[in-house]
């Protein structure tokens, strides 16, 4: 089990507002800031912000936060936990202060970038940010080579409730991850089932992208759904859902055992190794995702899987583990690419794949559902799509297991 970097009492965290911050130990901690600026220096878009994290804390302490509300600075925050990870005072900027500021910006700003607005409206109406019909969420099941049980059709208790999530369920390349996950569960003999069309986005990016009300709506829905069925643990393909369940859902009583598919498979590596019969012959570099790695400390589990794959050589990028650079998809960034383009920023996914290409690897391995589409697109943009492919660790694992 990896060391976790939290320490928060989540119940108090959900009651905190900008006005009541000082009534809670985690909130009071913000007043211990020494204004060293490590947060701003490590922030991937910090150089573009009028109000980078250090200044936000300064303004908060002077009671001048209103200055931020009409600026665009918060639109550049991709909730990557880098500022929090580097803070010598362990101030939880990403988890506490920035979402509260973003919420206020949303209330004060007359217009949101259209792409982000549409994604938030879609999450509320359809339960997924892409605006697909909820009735098509489990369509990919028909393309699976192994049988998949949907709980609404077969209510028997299950060991693993696999929470598939949006980008895995709807996005065509995400569905490759679904089929791979199902195949490995099957080979492991795991008793698993999914929620099918009943599942809705866990909503993590709803909260981190300013929308606490949207997040609460989705959280209440999913908690009622979980209560309908009997299962021993939740395993999810989405690192953002993992974060939502681990840190936010407990406020509504979530106390199920929880794992991400990557850590679940890493835990079963001894059973999986004898099944790996195909030699892959890849040089792989691994991108540590913000949620799974930096926020939750799972640096070694994904690498353990990769190193056990026959014929795989693992090479590291310059920025790895806690220093990994965000793909740019978190905190609503997934739906701000057009906006960043108009600002003439180098998109973070492009910055990251350039670093991946420099390793000479031919596979960029990932563990977060956002990254497949982001990095595949970025490789095309920087002209690297003939040199490197992007694969979820689960896909590589399934490929090695014939």
């Amino acid at each position, binding site marked *: 089990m990896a060391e976790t970097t939290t320490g928060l009492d989540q119940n108090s965290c959900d009651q905190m507002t900008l006005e009541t911050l000082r009534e809670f130990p985690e909130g009071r901690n913000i007043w211990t800031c020494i204004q060293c600026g490590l947060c701003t220096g490590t922030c991937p878009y910090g150089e573009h912000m009028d109000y980078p994290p250090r200044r936000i804390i300064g303004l908060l302490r002077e009671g001048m936060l209103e200055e931020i509300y009409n600026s665009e600075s918060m639109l550049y925050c991709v909730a990557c936990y880098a500022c929090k990870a580097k803070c010598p005072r362990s101030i939880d900027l990403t988890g506490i202060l920035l979402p509260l500021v973003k919420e206020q910006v949303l209330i004060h700003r007359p217009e949101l970038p259209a792409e982000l607005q549409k994604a938030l409206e879609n999450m509320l109406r359809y339960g997924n940010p892409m605006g697909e019909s909820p009735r098509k969420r489990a369509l990919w099941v028909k393309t699976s080579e192994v049988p998949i049980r949907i709980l609404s059709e077969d209510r028997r208790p299950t060991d693993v409730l696999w929470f598939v999530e949006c980008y895995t369920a709807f996005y065509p390349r995400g569905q490759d991850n679904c089929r791979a996950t199902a195949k490995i569960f099957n080979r492991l003999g795991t008793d698993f089932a999914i929620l099918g069309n009943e599942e809705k986005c866990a909503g993590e990016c709803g909260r981190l992208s300013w929308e606490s009300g949207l997040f609460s*709506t989705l959280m209440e829905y999913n908690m009622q759904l979980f209560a309908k069925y009997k299962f021993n643990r939740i395993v999810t393909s989405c690192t953002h859902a993992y974060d939502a369940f681990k840190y936010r859902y407990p406020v509504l009583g979530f106390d199920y055992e929880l794992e991400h598919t990557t850590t679940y498979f890493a835990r079963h590596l001894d059973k999986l190794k004898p099944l790996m019969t195909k030699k892959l012959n890849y040089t792989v570099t691994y991108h540590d995702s913000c949620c799974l790695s930096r926020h939750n400390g799972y640096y070694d589990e994904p690498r353990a899987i990769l190193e056990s794959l026959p014929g795989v050589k693992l090479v590291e990028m310059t920025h790895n583990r806690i220093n990994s650079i965000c793909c740019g998809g978190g905190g609503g960034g997934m739906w701000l690419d057009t906006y960043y383009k108009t600002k003439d920023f180098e998109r973070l996914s492009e910055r990251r794949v350039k670093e991946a290409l420099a390793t000479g690897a031919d596979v960029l391995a990932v563990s977060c559902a956002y990254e497949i589409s982001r990095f595949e697109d970025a490789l095309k943009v920087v002209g690297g799509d003939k040199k490197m492919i992007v694969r979820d660790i689960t896909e590589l694992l399934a490929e090695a297991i014939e």
Partner: protein
Amino acid sequence: MNILVLLRMVPDVVEELEVAPDGKSLNDEFLRLIINESDNHALEQALLLKERYGGAVTVIAMDQPEIDDVLFTALAKGIDRAVKITGAEKGLTTRQVASLVSRAMPTTPNVLPADLVITGCQAIDDLDGQVAPLLAYDLKLPYLGLVTGMEVDLSARKATVVREYAGGVRGEFDVPLPAVLGIQVAERPPRYVPVAKVRAVAKSQQIETAAAGALTQVPAVDVVEMKKPEAAGRAEMIEGSPEEVAAKICGILAERGLL
């Protein structure tokens, strides 16, 4: 200034539409309704006018599934009152909707007189945009559609309205108030309202109701048959190396006599 906005719900095409067994209506088993897009622009335009000139905005809508969500969202965005007309039959025609709404307006307390009645100028189930002009006819008010912006002079009791035609041609018109306007697009994209605000409004504010009157209008147009469009042609994907693809394209062009 008193502004009255009519909002209508239309089938959401994110769900695949199916024809009902009767062969002339939509199967409502999986049908989901969503606010008509240009009505959403009419709501935004009303909010912009309220911000610019002051006054109050009342939204009126037929009671349909999910209409409460739409009305609470409108209240959260800043309208003053929401009224839904209850007890009407399902499957009304545009003529019947206009008639029911126009008759509910005078009988609902404090809805009329309004300086402006605005709604979307068309809908996916009303592509020729009949609802707003029929409403104007029933209310005996002037009507202008395709509206994309306006200035109001309340003391002179007139509005100067911009209409946008196909090909980017614009026209400016003066219309005496009160009037009915069909909005094509608002002067700004419809605003976002935080879900937390909608949830708070749903707990603290009320949607008023008004009973639908009897149906007096006989539909002027009958639906005879409804069916899905048939595929008329198809695309052929040409595969192979660039040389092979080029040769095949040349072959097809030559075969069709285009070379």
